[in-house]
């Protein structure tokens, strides 16, 4: 028998988030429309100021608690069933590798559920569950540690969309 390592406190909420993917999807869509897009000029004014750090701390706190967020700076939770793909030990953002164990655990750590098995579960609970089929571009590693929320607001400002 192998000794079970202590379960990280965050992992419980990670599964809760996947089970409540539909609620979180609804919350995020409103958050995106009202706060992120509506207050876009404010967010973009914050970039590069000391207040940016505050946004990062809040984002890290909230998403760390709910998703075990790794602050990649290019959040795709809305397309991954609210299971963070950066918690995959290979950091795969386009789906599971071929090594997932028969019981749905990770090939590299049998104690962990595969992040993509969770993602598929969460995705099936979401309203817009076609987003998981979209291709994710290679991760921009220069964004690590920055705020995804601010990055999104900046992208909208760049392409002038509303």
């Amino acid at each position, binding site marked *: 028998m192998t000794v079970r390592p202590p379960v990280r406190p965050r992992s419980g909420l990670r599964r809760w988030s996947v089970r409540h993917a539909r609620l979180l999807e609804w919350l995020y869509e409103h958050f995106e429309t009202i706060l992120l897009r509506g207050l876009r000029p404010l967010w973009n004014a914050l970039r590069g100021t000391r207040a940016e750090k505050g946004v990062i701390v809040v984002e890290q706190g909230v998403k760390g608690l709910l998703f075990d967020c790794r602050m990649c700076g290019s959040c795709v939770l809305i397309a991954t069933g609210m299971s963070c793909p950066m918690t995959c*030990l290979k950091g795969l953002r386009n789906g599971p590798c071929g*090594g997932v*164990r028969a019981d749905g655990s990770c090939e590299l750590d049998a104690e962990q559920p595969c992040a993509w098995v969770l993602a598929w579960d969460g995705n099936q609970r979401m309203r817009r569950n076609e987003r998981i089929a979209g291709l994710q571009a290679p991760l921009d590693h220069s964004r690590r540690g920055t705020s995804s929320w601010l990055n999104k607001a900046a992208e909208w400002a760049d392409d002038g969309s509303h």
Partner: protein
Amino acid sequence: MTAATDGDQQDSGRDPGAPLPPLPGHSSRGRLERVLRRGEFAVTAEMDPPDSADADEVYQRAAVFDGWVDAINATDGAGANCHMSSVAICALLTRVGYAPVFQISCRDHNRIAIQGNVLGAAAMGVGNILCLTGDGVEVGDQPQAKPVFDLDGISLLETIRIMRDEKRFLSGRKIASPPEVFLGAAINPFAPPVDYRPLRLAKKIAAGAQFVQSQYCFDLPMLRDYMKRAVDQGLHEECFILIGVGPLASARAARWIREHVPGVHIPEAVIDRLAGAQDQIREGRDLCIELIQQIREVEGVAGIHVMAYRRERLAVEIIEKSAVLGGRRPWKRQQAGQA
């Protein structure tokens, strides 16, 4: 033994190492794409890479497959163990006319190294590339290594497709002469989440996969389910699907593989059949031959990919006995001194 027909000698030029003349609608100038697009049932095989700097070892290992397969896969640090590099093996193989499949694993190279290697391989005449995510370093002989995973299997496909079709690097910088390559990926119809697997194939096709080679198949009903869903979506018309096969040496070996090799699914019935046999090696061979014959009949399957780690001669025996080539003889090297 089938007599050699002139068959696939049509797929060779004057100089064995030179790319074949371009054909309309083909992305590569290699033999594998020609065989598949002609509608032949293709056979590819995996070569065990040497732990050596000796080119002759590569040629000796490839010679076992000579005249029996349409392409030879050179693995890229399979199982996170270090061997001669895939790109070098492929470059050596093209010199004498073999059609290699250059496997790239995202575990060991970042996007800068990969794009450079793709150009280099294509310049050496490599016509096929298989894009893999790769096993984690934890399962290999050097778990202290830093895992890279800058790209994943799908973004790797897309990267090379962009280089070939849009003649540019990921950065947008122009490529003067793009790599003419036939792009492949791996699939595993037998790993969870099973419902997601056909969608994942569709995603790989969207990213650029023109052929796929699967993980070992030991479970025919599972394969049939997967292929039915793929065929219903028309995926077999957009991409050539090759199914992975290989002989099991014994019930004990099968259990070991199931527990230790990531992603290999072996049903209990298969292990029971081996355990009940007097000669388990023979039973493993016969089981593999039967599977190949059954896989060949599954709608949408375009070929098989034989993986027989360190048992290449047995692999060739299986290809011959299963009659999977249907009397066709793949390209064979004309060696000096032979008639």
